[in-house]
Structure formats: C-alpha cells, structure tokens
C-alpha cells in the first residue's frame, strides 16, 4: 500500500488490479492535494474500511474482470458499494465493469452494481460511428451534475454502458453526442459514480470531478 499525504482528511483508495493507469490518477489527486493510497490487494480493506474507492481502467471489459477476480477484488467491490454503501467511482472500463455483462474481449459477467450492459458503441440501431471514439467530447445533456454541461472531457473507448430503459433511477446521468450518436458519459446513483471519460486526463474540468468525489 503506497500512501500519499494530502491536505484533506478524506483519503481516496485507488484499486490497482494491474490493468489500469494508476499514475495519472495519482498525479491528478496530488495536484488537488487529496490524500490517496494505491491498494493492490482487497484483503487490506476487508479489515479496515477504504472510505472512498476509485477503480481506474484502460483495459478491455473481460481483461479487467479477469484481473479483478484473480485477486478477489470483485467480491470486495460489491461489499464496498452494495453492503457498506461507501463511495465508489469507476473510470472508463472501471465504470463499465459495474454493468451486468460486457462484450469487449469476449462475453464476461460484470459486478452487476448497475442495471446496465456494456456493448459496442455501435450496438443496435442508430448512427454507426468510426471506432474507437477518441478525443475530447462535449457533454450535451447532464441531469444531476449540471456543472458538467458543455464541458469537454477525454473519451477513449469502443464499448459503452447501455442502461436499462428506466434511466430515471439515477441521481445524475450525462450524455455526449458524437456524429449524431448519443454516448453515455456518466451516471451517479447514491454512493456510485461512473464515468466513461477520463476525469484525470480532462484538464481542470476533470480535476473538479475528482475534487467533488473526494467530498462525497
């Protein structure tokens, strides 16, 4: 467990499951003077609560889930989010794995923390866009976190979360529009926050999200 001291009393624990980009998250939290620690094994957290937990991600859904399962993170994340109801934030594939199932890299069962599945961006009807979707996209719709509307965030993905029809069960939900296609950008529900884009790679607008999460 690597610790970094910050000015805030709350500490964010970053899940290191071998496939996420830990460094950019750490550097962002460092810039915000938010205390954080990188945790490689969940057994360290079963004993003492993690408080805020952040799951980064740059790998495919299936690679991410296999990596999480191999060290028992899947069970702890469910315990943390559903039983202890503590703040959990997922970024990119760290968000996608909150779904029931994912298709990237082969069909794989997810954590089922949200009523959604993760499929190709071009799944179903509607405009087909060139994949992957890479670059800064503007949030065009934002319920809940209204301050995100019209802000630009960095997306890099070919798959995305498709929530069940009833999306009004969320405290917040955001979308970007890319080449005429609606792209789910993020959801917030109670203690769960998920973002398809990378706040840690989205300049000041992204840093503000991390800052707000630390206050949850």
């Amino acid at each position: 467990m690597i610790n970094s001291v910050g000015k805030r009393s709350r500490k964010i624990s970053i899940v290191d499951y071998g496939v996420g980009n830990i460094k950019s998250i750490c550097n962002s939290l460092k810039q915000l003077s938010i205390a954080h620690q990188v945790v490689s094994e969940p057994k360290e957290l079963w004993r003492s609560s993690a408080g805020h937990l952040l799951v980064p991600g740059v790998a495919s859904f299936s690679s991410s889930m296999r990596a999480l399962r191999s060290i028992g993170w899947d069970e702890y994340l469910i315990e943390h989010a559903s039983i202890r109801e503590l703040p959990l934030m997922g970024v990119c594939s760290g968000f996608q794995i909150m779904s029931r199932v994912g298709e990237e890299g082969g069909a794989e069962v997810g954590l089922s923390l949200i009523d959604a599945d993760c499929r190709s961006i071009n799944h179903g009807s509607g405009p087909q866009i060139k994949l992957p979707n890479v670059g800064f996209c503007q949030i065009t719709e934002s319920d809940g976190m209204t301050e995100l509307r019209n802000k630009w965030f960095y997306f890099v993905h070919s798959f995305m979360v498709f929530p069940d029809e009833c999306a009004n069960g969320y405290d917040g939900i955001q979308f970007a529009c890319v080449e005429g296609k609606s792209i789910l950008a993020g959801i917030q529900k109670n203690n769960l926050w998920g973002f398809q884009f990378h706040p840690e790679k989205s300049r000041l607008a992204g840093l503000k999200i991390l800052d707000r999460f630390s206050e949850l």
Partner: protein
Amino acid sequence: MRAKRLIFNFLYHNGSFCLSRNFRLQKVGDVSWLMDNFDIFDFSNHVDEIGIINISDQPFEERYSQTFFRDIDLLLEKITVPVTIGGGVTTVSEAGKLFDFGADKILIASACLRRPKLSHDITTIFGAQSLIFQLDIDFERGIVFADNGMTPFVTVDNLPQILMDVSAGEVCLNSIDRDGSGMGFPTHKAGFVEDLPLRMIFSGGFGESKHFKDVLNHPSIDACCTSNILNFLGDGMADVRTDLVQAGILVSS
C-alpha cells in the same frame, strides 16, 4: 460533439529533448531545461494529448533506463491530458511495462510493420484504443520506412493492405520528407486515407496555424501532431488553438 485534436510529441534521446529535421536530431535541452523554461501544467490546457517518443536506437532495456523514467515522471506530474509513449517497443511485455509506468497509449512503428500480429496481441489485452500504429513515410519518394527512417520497407501503394492487417485504434502518418521543415504536411499525397475506417493522425511539417487548419479541415483526419519544441511549446499551441477556433474548426476548450 467530438473535437479535432492537437497532439504534441516530445522527442527524447538519451536524456535530452530534441528537434528533428528529416529525422536528423538536434538536442535542445534536458528535463531540467524543459521544466525551467516552460509551464507544462499550463501547456496541457492547450494540447489534447502529449506523446513522449523515445528515439534512442538502443534495445528496450537500455532505451527505457531509470533516467528516462525519472525524467518523464517529472513531466507526468504536470500533465492533465492523455500521454502516449513510444519508440522501440517490440513485444507485449515491453508494451505492458510502459502501461505500468503510466502510458495511456503506446505508439509502435517498425515492430507492427514487420509483425502485424503484435498489434493484435497488444489490443486483445489492452484494448484497440491503447495502440497508435505509426508509419514513417517519405511521401516524395512514395516509400514507407522502418527503423527510424533507416530501412526502406514498402511503397505507399501497399499501405491500404498494411493498415487492414494491423489492429490499432489510431494510425499516425509521419512525413519524413516534411519532418521539421515547417512547410506543412503533404496532405495531397495522403488521399488514400479517405475510405479507411480508421482514426488518422497526420504528423510532420507543421510550421504555422494554416498548416493545422489545412489538415483538420479534412473530415477524415482526426488529429495533427507536431514535435517542434522551439516553435510550439510555450504559447505556440495556444495560438494555433485560437486560430483554429476563429477558422471554425471544432477544438476542445
């Protein structure tokens, strides 16, 4: 809406950041010089991605020395946009080491040109978005080179097939003949990209805002990349971004 992207590549060679002209290097300064002279955190507000290309000709272990990682760590602490690292990567394991270090994407040229399977192996594990396949091209002579422009490999006629064989989220066409010239990218010789279902980055030759505008006006081109430290570090990219906005090109803010 998705914005067009401006990418800045730092060229790193054995402890120094460099300028390149037709792939011939000129050392500019080390990491201390860079940090002393430029506000990298502020610079992140004016570019969409940053690349760090290790252009040493040493094998991977020597090329990616402790000095490299220490120097680049100092930069990464200040960067708030995605970072690509590339140069000399020939295996999945080596790619993994760079992801572990903090790369968001890996850039590979020669190894994928010679072994397209490597690109499939990497993208299977890390996702298609994790890999930029770079092609170093002498557009004037119509030749694709390997090994940092040292080895003629195929003619550009073969490019569409090569691009279909490689699995990568993005493809970067790097102009050897315009590299460092400030004469603009030879877009007129890259028309073959129009029908390709790939994200395209054009690199090489950018010397003024007009060159970026000319390329980014093209609907098939996603991004421009420059590595001219003396011209575009500091306020250079901010000025280009302002000019692009005034020209009606969608860039992020």
